[in-house]
């Protein structure tokens, strides 16, 4: 890493010890337990368990329900990632472009960053209330009878909107700082080389933002996959019913609500594998193409 490094027989271990200890106790231990229990069928109260091999996996993967949740998760993740990145980028690019008032815009756009997912869910719930939600009334103006909580697609759309809304500021901040680290002279060179701002964006700004965008891609996918839990939990009002849910919510529902430890663990392990594969894929194929410096 560094040209000159310290060498000491014990210091690095000392510095790593706290983090490693916590990771071992609170990450590896539970994770190993999860993997282990994914091969068992366990009585909820822990009175006994039966080894069932891979049947927890085959049960989950074979279930139509699980497959449809998986499909939704993919669509949801893709849309939330794409939209929140896109809108965040649009706003960041604009905020970066205007000189007058850019500080005010920045401040106003950043401060929603801190909203907790369940709070966003609460707002979504109220805004999309079937009877009195302003957004439902707004949709009605266009002849769209939105039935959030009843109609699967309507609910999905509402969830996506709320999840995207909550994530925009995060992307905004990171893209803005990414933009600000593009050398001014490169931008000026482009201003001389290219009249059209739009073209400049696609041919110069966007490729140069690629490292930031890649990082955000990972973060947003993680967000859509895992952190939207709070949004979904509040928006389904405690009843998943026919509402769209994501795989993580399903893990929680089956494991915590349903006390089906083996099944839920198997689903965790499946998610683990998916995330692992995704990460490897991202690093091998996408990151390789975006590193400049």
């Amino acid at each position, binding site marked *: 890493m560094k040209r000159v490094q310290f060498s000491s027989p014990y210091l690095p271990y000392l510095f790593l010890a706290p983090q490693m200890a916590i990771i071992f106790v609170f990450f590896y231990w539970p994770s190993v337990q999860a993997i282990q229990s994914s091969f068992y069928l366990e009585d*909820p109260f822990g009175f006994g368990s*039966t080894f069932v091999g891979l049947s927890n996996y085959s049960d989950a993967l074979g279930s139509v329900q699980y497959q449809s949740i998986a499909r939704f998760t993919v669509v949801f993740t893709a849309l939330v990632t794409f939209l929140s990145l896109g809108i965040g980028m649009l706003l960041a690019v604009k905020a970066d472009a205007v000189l007058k008032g850019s500080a005010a815009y920045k401040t106003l756009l950043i401060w929603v960053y801190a909203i907790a997912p369940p709070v966003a869910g609460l707002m979504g719930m109220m805004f999309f209330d*079937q009877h009195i939600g302003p957004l439902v009334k707004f949709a009605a103006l266009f002849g769209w009878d939105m039935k959030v*909580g*009843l109609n699967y697609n309507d609910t999905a759309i509402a969830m996506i909107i709320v999840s995207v809304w909550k994530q925009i500021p995060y992307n905004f901040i990171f893209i803005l700082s990414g933009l600000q680290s593009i050398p001014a002279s490169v931008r000026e060179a482009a201003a001389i080389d290219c009249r059209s701002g739009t073209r400049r964006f696609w041919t110069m700004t966007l490729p140069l933002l690629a490292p930031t965008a890649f990082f955000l891609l990972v973060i947003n996918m993680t967000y859509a996959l895992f952190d939207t839990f709070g949004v979904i939990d509040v928006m389904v009002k405690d009843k998943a019913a026919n509402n769209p849910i994501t795989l993580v919510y399903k893990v929680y529902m089956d494991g915590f*609500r*349903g006390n089906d430890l083996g099944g839920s663990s198997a689903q965790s392990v499946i998610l683990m594998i998916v995330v692992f594969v995704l990460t490897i894929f991202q690093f091998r194929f996408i990151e390789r193409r975006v590193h400049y410096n």
Partner: protein
Amino acid sequence: ATNITWWHGMAGRNGEVINEVAQKFNAAQSACALTPVSKGTYEEALASGIAAFRSGEQPNILQVFDAGAATIINAPGAVIPAEDLITGAGHPFDREAFIEGVRYFYATPDGKFVGMPFNSSAPIMYVNTEALEKAGVEAPKTWEEFEAIAPKLKEAGYLPLVQSQLTWQFTENFFSRNNIQFATNNNGYDSVTDTKINMTDPNLVMMFTKLKAWADEGYFGYFGAGWNDNQKLFEDGKAALWIGSSGSFGGLQKTAQKPFTAAFLPYWQGIEGAGTNSFIGGAALFAMSGKPDEENKCTADFFQFLTSPEIQKFYHQATGYVAITKAAYELAKSEGYYEKTPVAEVGIQQLMLKSGDWSKGYRLGFYPQIREIMEREYGRIFAGETSVEDAMKTIETEANDLLARFAKTAG
């Protein structure tokens, strides 16, 4: 004093009443100190209780709702049967002191109380009196009658019918109210092995076919699985009839914009033997095992305390949940409570209706998950994504899988 804890799934006003009950208990004696903790919803309370039990951190008392009863009762050694606990602590216990409707649901097949019935409810029909007057009709006793008056209610500008929970009100209690077998093995009481659910029962299919048809006609409104979305129209005076919980009475008094009364949950005249009592709803308290004797003693004391007529009456009146002992019912009655608030009596009366073979209770493992399957498929029926027959078949298949799985874990 010995400290004991009580995890429950009530919030809002109902949660506050629980706190008051606990305070009363703590004030009434000094040996024990009870701390109630809200764990969220019924489902979350059960889940937290189980998760805690696995790691030996369980509370002394866990509130478990009707749908979760099988899960906890079938777990051998997870709980001390309430009856054993109370008698073991030297208190007298008389099953007969409880009203008919609550005696079986949380008990063993031979009648021993495992759970201590606490907040008991029945699904009843709330009636917007103004709407009925306007339409010039009477509250329906049967669904046939409802079919007859629905067009008039609609004409009068009302949504004739809404409900709050299709699983509880139109599935479980459809079976009890119409006296139809819900599941094999004596509704699951006899054994967990090979218990099968009866979701494809033609009458149940008929009920939902009707509901869907009514919905299409504008006689019935379904707004999803959330309680709030459905009852809201009734509260706002836009719906004429609402199938809710007798326990909703307290809240409804605050939110309803129009005068209301209540009637029994309708049944089908056309089904033979229909009109029996409904399953008991709400929840019971369970004494978790693995606790020291002196704590169990306190739990027993508290259970005993709960059955006292004064406490029962207090809880009944504060929340709208029914009184579970005859003595408490009589006490309230004698004080003229039901004359002032007749709605409060509807639930008890419905629970005290004649009982049939299939209206005593059901005991199905993993039932909270089965309810989730039902909610999902019902949603799809009303969203027009599936047919009633297909939905019921799907529920039956998935539910039977779960039951088989439960049999394995519990066996």
